[in-house]
Every structure is written in structure tokens, then in C-alpha cells.
């Protein structure tokens, strides 16, 4: 039994070391990018309106480039993330946001999965009790 658990442990620690080594080896150097991290973070949540379901972060289209530049400028003007989303929404509508905001239109979208989870859990729990 002892031998068994020793071998389990050693294999597991090997696995941890592999994974952590890999992540350790890479120092992050995102400063090299033309765009700041914040811009890119926001860009990932903005739909490229002329593309087939891409975010502007991934897209190289003219619109995407302009929008990224716009976000960068707005950030430099001191706007925060939410203000930029609001700005883009007013200009292009909800459609441009890849992360739909919580409102009456999307309340079901955001909560339905968890409602389903809760109700089916209750059902199963009752089943267990039986």
C-alpha cells in the first residue's frame, strides 16, 4: 500500500512540475505590442461588424483597426471600460457587444442556465431522498 501511494504521489508531482515549469519559463512581455493590454481586453468583447463572427481584436479589417484606434484614444482621454462600452453601444447598438449587457432583453439569457441547474438539482435531490 505504501509503495502504491508513493508512486501515485511521485507521478503527480512530476505532472505539477511539468506544468509549472512551462508557465515559469515564459516571462510576459506584452509591452511590445502597439496596443495596450486594456485596449485588447476591450477589443475582445467588441464584435467586428463587417466580419463573420469575429471580435475586432482578431480581425484585420479596416473597421476593426479604426475601432481599436478609437478605443485606445478614448482610454487615453481617461474613459474607463464601461464608458467605452456605453459609447460604442450608443453609436452601433447592443449588437456590437460580444458580452451582452444585463437588461430586460437578456435577463433570461444570463439567468436561465442557472435556473435550470437549480431546478434540476432540486429534482435530483428529491429523487435521492426517495
Amino acid at each position, binding site marked *: 500500500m505504501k509503495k502504491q501511494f508513493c508512486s*501515485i504521489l511521485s507521478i503527480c508531482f512530476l505532472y505539477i512540475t511539468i506544468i509549472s515549469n*512551462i508557465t515559469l519559463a515564459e516571462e510576459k512581455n506584452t509591452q511590445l505590442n502597439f496596443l495596450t493590454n486594456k485596449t485588447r481586453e476591450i477589443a475582445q468583447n467588441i464584435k467586428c461588424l463587417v466580419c463573420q463572427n469575429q471580435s475586432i481584436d482578431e480581425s484585420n479589417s479596416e473597421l476593426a483597426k479604426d475601432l481599436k484606434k478609437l478605443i485606445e484614444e478614448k482610454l487615453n482621454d481617461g474613459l474607463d471600460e464601461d464608458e467605452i462600452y456605453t459609447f460604442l453601444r450608443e453609436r452601433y447598438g447592443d449588437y456590437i457587444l460580444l458580452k451582452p449587457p444585463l437588461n430586460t432583453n437578456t435577463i433570461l439569457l444570463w439567468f436561465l442556465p442557472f435556473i435550470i*441547474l437549480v431546478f434540476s438539482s432540486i429534482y435530483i435531490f428529491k429523487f435521492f431522498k426517495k
Partner: protein
Amino acid sequence: MIPELGHVFLVLAFVASIMQIVFWTYHINSFNELALDILKKSALLNCIFILISFLILTYSFIISDFSLLIVSNNSHTLKPLIYKISGTWGNHEGSLLLWVLILSSFTFLVSYKKTHNNGELLFSIIGVQTLILCLFLAFILLTSNPFERVSAIPIEGRGLNPLLQDPGLAFHPPMLYVGYVGLSVSFSFAVGALITGKINKEWAQQIRPWITIAWSALTMGIALGSWWAYYELGWGGWWFWDPVENASFMPWLIATALLHSIRILETRLIFINWCILLSILGFAFSLLGTFIVRSGLLTSVHSFASDPSRGIFILIILVISVGGPLILYALKSSLFREQKVQFNLLSKESALLINNLFFTTATATVLIGTLYPLFLDAFNGDKISIGPAYYNATFAPIMAPIILLMAIAPFFNWGKGKSKNLLKIIAILITTSLVSVITLYTIDGSSIFAIICGSLSIWLFVGVVSDLIIKFTETKIKLNKVSNLFIYISKNKIGMNIAHLGVAIFLAGVTGEQFFKTEFSGRKNIGDTFSIGNRVLEFKNFETINGPNYQSEMGIFTLHHNSKFIGYLKPEKRYYPTEQTQTTEAAIISNFLGDTYIVLGEGNYETGWSIRIYFNPLVSWIWAGAFLMALGGVTSIIQNKKTFNNATKVSLNEI
């Protein structure tokens, strides 16, 4: 003349399938061996007819017969042979023909396989399969005839979308279709059980290999598609939560749930109705997937051949083939007698049940995310988009508990039995996971999700390895010879372990790719050196090259890691004159630790070229994990077949 022959065979298959359905419904209440034999033989006949038709279409593509509409629209004489062949299913009509070919092959295989004294069930299974085949043949013949001629034969074809001229895409659709269509078999098993009104453990044992085949193929199909998107679309991502990806992911989730719940049914003969419902839903989601992809209802990066008018027809097929069985289910499901079984909270039964709870909820979440914009638009005209952020917030937290459970559930016993190792295992799991949390935190504590995701991978890995080692030591075979390894493997059922190990590896890949990715984008000219992490790249040269059916601009880079030369990277920008499209071909150096991925953008000798470079740690583990999952499925089919043959000889008690 030859294409007409293909059309004739397709019509023949259609007419034959109608006759078989009439024959089947006539004999459904007066089943006899002769009728079954006739239906079996006609299933083979259908398969041969459709195979001939498909081969003729492939032949037309190979010889570039531009008098055929789909050949002239999707092929070109200069295209390499492999893409001429894969072009057969690189379009709507051809891919549907492939679909029915796979469907009829599955029907034939089911009828060919010896079923154990249950001809009545088999009779219904073939009948239901033929009914689906008939509907799809009608769809092809009425709306999407692959053998349609053009009045003026063009000298040259219009070529295939260059994105599809790729080995990954040559094998992705057939694999995916084997998965989609494979689920029709479990569907027919369920409908067959509803028709005959009989279900037993044998039924579950027979259905399981078919679910597993479909599931494995679906896993591989999705992985191939994701791999293709990764290297071909040039964004460095591998999963986009795109409607078409979701369309293939939902049947996968349901099939995974079914794969687990059928284990309870086969061992304990409980949850009969639930398994039947899942079988029906699995195929329903396959059809829904086909509908989403083929109708072009939702915009997607993957849909290349879509036509809204055909969508309605698929919707009708969907309603008939799902509505019918659901009505039957409502009428007859109360007939099934379940065993009275008691089990603990910590038992295999409840673990598998909780697995099903989470998997079906996860499926519902993906379904909501995929279709919600559509319904909202129809409801009040408002348009919204749903991107990865939504799924990260809903799907991921629903899946996380499954991983927790996955590591410990194999140590549970059936029913009321106590499991002896459970406490020790949980102690080991918690210790190693704590160590991993601390290690990951000290390396990079910036993202809590990275720590959770990485630790889940380790948690699961520890669980699977412990299970394997315990199985191993209990087998009492010394591992001093290689041949003993095979004996060991054949003595233990390790299909599940391999698949679960695949999930752990997959999760490690996801952690690396999502949270530890580094990237660089900017303008560089020939001679420039730049670094990403501790990798150094040098822009050596720029060349223009002529391919078989494209012109290419190629950048040549060298990669050094810790001042050791690793290799050349040659990203390309290709222009296909026939199709008048441009594609980017990313250059990737891939190894165990991660991928260096480089994309060449536009530019010239004066300003330099805009380039994007990613270093994606562990990214290849994502596909390695998926491959292991599929391998686990195949292993369990082989091993179960063996024990099944043995078990039928001895007894059916202990499976």
C-alpha cells in the same frame, strides 16, 4: 452519361427506401424472421446504391467534369488531387450525399452485427434508420441534386474556397458526420425499444458500442475542426464559441451524458426513460446542428455553403423525426418496468446521475447562447451578439464541478457498497491540489481562473493516475516484460481512464493557451531581430513563390530558444487567382511545451511587414487530450466486446 447514372442510383435508393418503409410498417405487428431477412438485405442494397452514386460524384470531381453544376462551382483543374476528392464533400450537395452514405453504412453495419435473439428490435431499428434515410434522400433529390447539369459547360471551374483546401478540412467533415450520423443508431435503438415496448440490460449492452463510436468520432471531428481553425484562420485561437462549433458541441455533450447514463441502465436497469429521452435528444441535436450549418441561419466563420430555402426542409425533417418519437415516448414510456434499486449518495449511480445533470444543463446553456439572439430578434427586433465572455461566465462554472466529481467518482461503488480507498484518495487529491494551487499562485497569481483551471487539471490527473495504479496493483501482474503490459491492459477496463486522462491533458492545454499566452504584433523588416519570452526571432528573407494554384508571399524567420537554433518559420500570404481570395498560412513550430505561431500581414520592402507572433504554451495538449478521449472510447469498445463475448457464455450478472 455517367453522372446521370449516379442520379439514377440515388433515385433507386429513394424508391427502394420507400418500399422498405411500406414493407416495414406492414409487418411491424406481424414480425417474422423472413421479413427481417428481407429488410436486412435491402439495407445492404441501399448502401450499395448510395455508395455507387457517391463514387460517381467523386469520379466527376476527379476528372473535373464541369458539366456538373457543383463541380464547376467548386472545383478547378489545377487543384491538387486530394482536394479534388475532398471537394466532393466541400459543398452542400456533396456533403449531404456523404451524410446519407454514412447513414446507410451505419444501417447496414447494425443489421450485419449479430444481435442476440432480438430480431424484433432489430427489425424496428432498420425500419427507423430507413425512414431517416428516406427523408434525407427526398431532401437531396428535391432541393439539392448533386448531379445537376449546366446548360453551357464552362472551360474552367470556379475553384474551391481556399480555406477548405487543407488536409484538416479534408478529414474533418467525414469524421464529424460519422459522429452526427452515428447518433442515429442510438436514436433508432430508443425508438425501436418504444415500438417493441421491451427493454433490458442486453439492450443497453448493445446500444453502448454505437454511442461510443459516435462519441469518439464526434470528439475527433470537433478536434480536427478546432485544429484547422487554429492554424488556418490565423488568429491563434482554437475555439470561438461560434454557432457552427456549438452545433457540433451540443450533440457531443448529450452523447457524453448518454454514454454515462447508459452505464447505470446496463448495470442496474434503472433510468430507462431518461436514457431513451437522451438517445432521442442526441440525434435531435445532430439534426439541429445540420440545420444550423446548412441553413445559414446564424452567421459563422465556418459556414461556407448555406442556403436559407433549404433550411425549411431540414426543419421539417427535424420535426418529423423528433416529434414522432417524442409522441411515442409520451405514450409508451410508462410501460417500462424499472428495477427497484437502492443506492448511497456516494455511489456510482448518483455520481453518474449528477454527471448527467451537469451535462444536460451545459447543453442547455450552449443551446440558449446559440439561439437566444435569433429568438430575441424574432420577438422584438432587438439584435444582440453573444461571444466567448458569455460562455466563460455560464458554461465554465457549470462544467467545473464535473471535473471535481470526475476524479473521485471512479472510486465509488455501485449501490450500497462501501468504497475502501475513497478517503485516502481524497486526502491525496486535496494535498496535491493544494500544492498545485500554491505553486501556480507563486508563479503567476494574476489570474484566479488560471489557478482554478490548472489545479482542476492536476486534480483530475491525480485521480486518474491513482485509479490506474490501484487497478494495476490489484491485478497482481509483475511488469517485468513488455508482453505483461498487454496482459495488464486487457485485464483491466482502462477505456474510461484513458478518456478521463484526455480531459486532464486537455484542461492543462486550455490553461496554458488561455492564461499564459504571450504575443507580439508590429511591423518588422528584413534583418530585424525581436524576442518573445526567451525566444528570439530573426526576419531573414522575403520571397514570392508560385504554388500549384496560388501565388504566395513568404516571410522566412529563424527561431532561437535560449540561444539554441530551433528551426525556420515560413508564414505565407497566398493569393488564389481563380477564387480571387487571399488566405494567410500561419507558420507554426510545435512541440510538447508550446507552439510558436507566426502570421505574416501586409507590407513591403520599405515599411516592413506587419506580423503577429504568438507563443501558446501547451496548446498541442488540447488536441492530444481530445485524441486521448477518442482513444479511450475506442479502447472501451474493444474491451467490452471481449468481455461481452465472455459474459454471454457465462453469465450476465457482473458486467
